[in-house]
C-alpha cells in the first residue's frame, strides 16, 4: 500500500489552481438531480487500487454537502452527488486533492453517448447467445437422428426462438449493411446480412415443408460470434476514449467576466464576446485571444510555442488563448470569440494536415472490399451451376445458402478486433492508451521516429545544474529572493538550494527582469545580466545572476532536465532498426546538447510547426511530441504519440498517449504493434485457409448444418486462441511498477 501514501509532490498538488477552485464554474458544470442536489464527475487518473478508492471516497464523505461519492475505477472517475446549500463545490476538488490525487472536473456534455451503444451491443449479444445455445440443443438431437415427427417439432421450436432473436440481435448488422448499400457501397455487414437473412428464410421454408435441413442454429451462432467480435472492438475503443477524455483537460471551459458595475459572473467559453472584460486568477488559462490591461502580467506560453520560459506581457499587448497565467489576478479585454482564437486556428491547421494525409483504410475494411464481391459471386455461381446442371432449383438454393453461411466472415470479423483488444490490454498495462486499432496497424509500419525536444525528451522544467556562490549569505539571499517570484528559474533555485534565515524588505519583482530587495541597507538583485547591472546581456535565458549593489555575488545556470529513461528508449528504438531524429523549435545549441545527451545523431533546430509537418509527412514517421506547436505534426505523421502531460490538443491529435513520463513506451508500442500485425496476418491467413477448405465442400453440396456448425465454431476458436499468444511472452510487470513509482514519486 506504500504506493498510495501522499508525498511531497501530491501535497503540492493540493494547492494547484484551475477552475476546480471556482464555485460558480463548478455549479455551471454540475448536473441537477431534482431534489436540490447536484452531481459532478471528477477524473482521478492516478487511482488504481482499493485503498485509492477508500481514501478518495472517505475524503469526500466527511464533507457535509456530499450525499454520495462513488469511484469508478474502470473509468478512473469519481461521481459526487452533493447539496450546494450545505457547502461549496470547490471543497470537493480540494478534498480529492488533499487525499493525494490529481483531479479535474469533467464536462458532462462531452460524455453520455458511449454507454448506451455498448449496452445495446451487449444486450444483442446476450439474446443471440441465448438463442444459439437453445437452438443448438434441438439441432444436436436432430443431427443425432431424431425421427421425422420429432425433427419437424424441433425445427418449429427452433424457428420460434430464432426468428425474434435474429430480428433483434441482427439489427446492428442490418442497419450498417443498409447504410452502406443505400450509398452504393459494400462492407463486411452486407454478406453477413444477406447470409443470415437467406439462411433464416430458407430454414423457415424447409420447416414449413418438413424438409430435412434447417440452418437456424447456424444463423444464431453466426450472429453470436459476430456480435462478440463487434463488442470487443467497441469495448477497446471505448476504454481508450474514456481514458483520453479523462486526460483531456480541455483548455478553459469559461472565464470570470467583470461587469461595468464590478459584478463578477462565470461565463462558459462560447458566450464570451469580444470587448468583455475578463479576470483571470493565478493558474488559470487565457480563454480567448485577449488584450492584457493589468500591469506586470506574466504568462507561460508553452502551449503556444512549446518553450517553458515565462513571458512578461505589458498592458496593451495581446495574449493567445491557452496561455497560463503565472502572476496574480490579471484583467484583460477579450479580442476574439473562442472559435477565432489561436486554439481554434490550430485545430483548423490540424484538420488540413489530416486531409492532406492519404486516407489509409483499415485492414479489415480492405479485406471486406475484396471479400464481399467474391463471396456473392461464388454463391450465385453455385446456385446457377447446380440449377442448370441438375435442374433441381431447390437443392441449388440449399447449396448456395450453405456457401453463404460457410463464408460468413466469422473468423474474419474476429481475426482483427481480438488481436487489437489483446494488444490494447497489454499496452494499457505498460501505461499506454491507444485510440483505435488502425493506430496499431500504422505503428507497425513506422520506419522512423521523430522526437520533439521540450516536454517530450525533456521534462520541460528547468533544473539548476551549475552555480557559483560567494559566501553562505549570498546563497540564503538568493533563496529568499527566489521565493518571492513565480518565475520557473526562481522556483528551480528554491527547489535546489537550502533556505536560510534572512529578513528581506522592499521586495519588488520586475517581470521579465528579476527581483530586488533591501537587506541591511544593501540593494540585492536576482535576475538577468542587465538587471544586475552587469552590462548588456547576451540574451542567455538559461542563466541567473545575483548582485549586491552592482557586484556579482552568485551565478546560476540551468538546463532542461532530460527524462531519465530517454537514452535507454533511444537505444531500444535504434535496436528495432528505426532511425531517430530530433525536431525542435528551440535554438540550435540547446537542441544539439540534448541530442548529444540522449544519443540522437540527427537533430534539426528552429523548426516552425509547418516545418515539422513537412518533415514528418514523408515516409511512415512516428512523431512523438507534446506541445500545441507539435499538434499539426502529430496529426500529419503516419502515427503519433504524446505524453499525458501534453497540451490537450496534442493529446487528442496523437494516436497513443503514454502516462507516467516513460519514454520506454515508444519502443513498447512499436514492438507490440509489430507483433500484433504479424498475428493479424496469421489470423487472416487462417481465416482464408479455412475458407479454402470449406468453400469447395459447400459448393459441392457437402455442407450440412452439422458441418457448418463445427466449421464456424472451430475457425473462430482458432483465431481467438492465436490472438491470445500476444499476451504470452515478455512480462509487462516491471514496466507497470515503474510507471506507478513514477506517478507517485
Amino acid at each position, binding site marked *: 500500500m506504500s504506493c498510495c501514501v501522499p508525498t511531497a509532490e501530491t501535497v503540492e498538488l493540493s494547492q494547484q489552481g484551475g477552475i476546480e477552485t471556482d464555485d460558480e464554474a463548478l455549479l455551471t458544470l454540475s448536473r441537477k438531480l431534482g431534489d436540490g442536489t447536484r452531481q459532478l464527475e471528477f477524473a482521478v487518473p492516478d487511482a488504481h*487500487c*482499493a*485503498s485509492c*478508492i*477508500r481514501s478518495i*471516497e472517505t475524503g469526500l464523505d466527511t464533507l457535509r454537502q456530499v*450525499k*454520495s461519492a*462513488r*469511484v*469508478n*475505477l*474502470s*473509468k478512473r472517475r469519481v*461521481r459526487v*452527488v452533493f447539496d450546494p446549500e450545505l457547502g461549496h463545490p470547490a471543497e470537493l476538488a480540494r478534498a480529492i486533492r488533499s487525499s493525494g490525487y490529481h483531479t479535474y472536473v469533467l464536462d458532462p456534455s462531452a460524455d453520455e453517448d458511449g*454507454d448506451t451503444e455498448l*449496452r445495446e451491443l*451487449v*444486450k444483442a449479444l*446476450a*439474446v443471440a447467445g*441465448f438463442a444459439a*445455445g*437453445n437452438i443448438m*440443443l434441438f439441432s444436436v438431437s436432430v443431427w443425432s437422428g431424431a425421427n421425422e415427427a*420429432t425433427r419437424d417439432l424441433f425445427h418449429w*421450436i427452433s424457428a420460434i*426462438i430464432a426468428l425474434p432473436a435474429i430480428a433483434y440481435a441482427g439489427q446492428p448488422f442490418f442497419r450498417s449493411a443498409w447504410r452502406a448499400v443505400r450509398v452504393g457501397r459494400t462492407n463486411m455487414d452486407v454478406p453477413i446480412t444477406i447470409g443470415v437473412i437467406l439462411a433464416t428464410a430458407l430454414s423457415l421454408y424447409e420447416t414449413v415443408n418438413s424438409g430435412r435441413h434447417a440452418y437456424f442454429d447456424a444463423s444464431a451462432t453466426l450472429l453470436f460470434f459476430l456480435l462478440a467480435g463487434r463488442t470487443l472492438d467497441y469495448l477497446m475503443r471505448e476504454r481508450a476514449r474514456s481514458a483520453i477524455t479523462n486526460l483531456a483537460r480541455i483548455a478553459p471551459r469559461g472565464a470570470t467576466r467583470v461587469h461595468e458595475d464590478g459584478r463578477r459572473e462565470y461565463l462558459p467559453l462560447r458566450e464570451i464576446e469580444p470587448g468583455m472584460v475578463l479576470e483571470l486568477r493565478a493558474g488559470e488559462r487565457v480563454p480567448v485571444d485577449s488584450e492584457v490591461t493589468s500591469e506586470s502580467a506574466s504568462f507561460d506560453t508553452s502551449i503556444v510555442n512549446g518553450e517553458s520560459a515565462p513571458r512578461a506581457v505589458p498592458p496593451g499587448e495581446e495574449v493567445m488563448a491557452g496561455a497560463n497565467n503565472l502572476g496574480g489576478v490579471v484583467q484583460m479585454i477579450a479580442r476574439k470569440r473562442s472559435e477565432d482564437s489561436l486554439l481554434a486556428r490550430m485545430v483548423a491547421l490540424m484538420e488540413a494536415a489530416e486531409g492532406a494525409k492519404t486516407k489509409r483504410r483499415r485492414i479489415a475494411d480492405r479485406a471486406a472490399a475484396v471479400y464481399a464481391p467474391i463471396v456473392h459471386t461464388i454463391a450465385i455461381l453455385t446456385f446457377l451451376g447446380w440449377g442448370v446442371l441438375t435442374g433441381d432449383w431447390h437443392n441449388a438454393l440449399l447449396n448456395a445458402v450453405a456457401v453463404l453461411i460457410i463464408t460468413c466472415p466469422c473468423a474474419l470479423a474476429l481475426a482483427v478486433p481480438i488481436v487489437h483488444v489483446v494488444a490494447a490490454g497489454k499496452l494499457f498495462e505498460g501505461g499506454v492508451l491507444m485510440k483505435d486499432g488502425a493506430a496499431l496497424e500504422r505503428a507497425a509500419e513506422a520506419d522512423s521516429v521523430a522526437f520533439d525536444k521540450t516536454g517530450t525528451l525533456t521534462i520541460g522544467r528547468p533544473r539548476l545544474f551549475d552555480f557559483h556562490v560567494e559566501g553562505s549569505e549570498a546563497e540564503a539571499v538568493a533563496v529568499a529572493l527566489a521565493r518571492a517570484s513565480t518565475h520557473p528559474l526562481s522556483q528551480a533555485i528554491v527547489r535546489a538550494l537550502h533556505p536560510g534565515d534572512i529578513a528581506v524588505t522592499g521586495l519588488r519583482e520586475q517581470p521579465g527582469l528579476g527581483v530586488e530587495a533591501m537587506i541591511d541597507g544593501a540593494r540585492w538583485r536576482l535576475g538577468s545580466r542587465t538587471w544586475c547591472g552587469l552590462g548588456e546581456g547576451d540574451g542567455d535565458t538559461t542563466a541567473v545572476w545575483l548582485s549586491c549593489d552592482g557586484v556579482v555575488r552568485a551565478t546560476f545556470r540551468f538546463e532542461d532536465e532530460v527524462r531519465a529513461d530517454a537514452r535507454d528508449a533511444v537505444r531500444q528504438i535504434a535496436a528495432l532498426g528505426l532511425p531517430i531524429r530530433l525536431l525542435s523549435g528551440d535554438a540550435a545549441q540547446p537542441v544539439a546538447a540534448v541530442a548529444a545527451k540522449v544519443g540522437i545523431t540527427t537533430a534539426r533546430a528552429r523548426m516552425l510547426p509547418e516545418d515539422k509537418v513537412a518533415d514528418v509527412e514523408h515516409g511512415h514517421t512516428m512523431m512523438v511530441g507534446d506541445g500545441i506547436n507539435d499538434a499539426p505534426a502529430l496529426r500529419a505523421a503516419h502515427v503519433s504519440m504524446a505524453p499525458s502531460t501534453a497540451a490537450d490538443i496534442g493529446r487528442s491529435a496523437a494516436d497513443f498517449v503514454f502516462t507516467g513520463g516513460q519514454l520506454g513506451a515508444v519502443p513498447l508500442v512499436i514492438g507490440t504493434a509489430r507483433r500484433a500485425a504479424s498475428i493479424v496476418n496469421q489470423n487472416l491467413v487462417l481465416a482464408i485457409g479455412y475458407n479454402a477448405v470449406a468453400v469447395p465442400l459447400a459448393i459441392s453440396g457437402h455442407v450440412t448444418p452439422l458441418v457448418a456448425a463445427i466449421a464456424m465454431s472451430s475457425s473462430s476458436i482458432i483465431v481467438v486462441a492465436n490472438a491470445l499468444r500476444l499476451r504470452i511472452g515478455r512480462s509487462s510487470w516491471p514496466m507497470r511498477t515503474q510507471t506507478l513509482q513514477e506517478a507517485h514519486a
Partner: protein
Amino acid sequence: MSGLSILIPVAIGLGLVALATFLWTLRSGQYDDLEGASQRILDEDSDRPAFDAHQGGPRR
C-alpha cells in the same frame, strides 16, 4: 414424447430466466465498474453493494 413436452418448456424457461437475469444485471449497472468491484472486495470496511440505491437502477 410426453417427457419432451415437459422438459422442453422447462429448458427454454430456464434459459429465458437466465437471459432476463443477465439483462437485469446489465440495466442495473453491475458491469459499469468491473475493476472497481474486484478491488473493493479487499477493503474490509466497505460493505456497500457494488451499486447503491442513489445511483443504481436504470440510468436517468
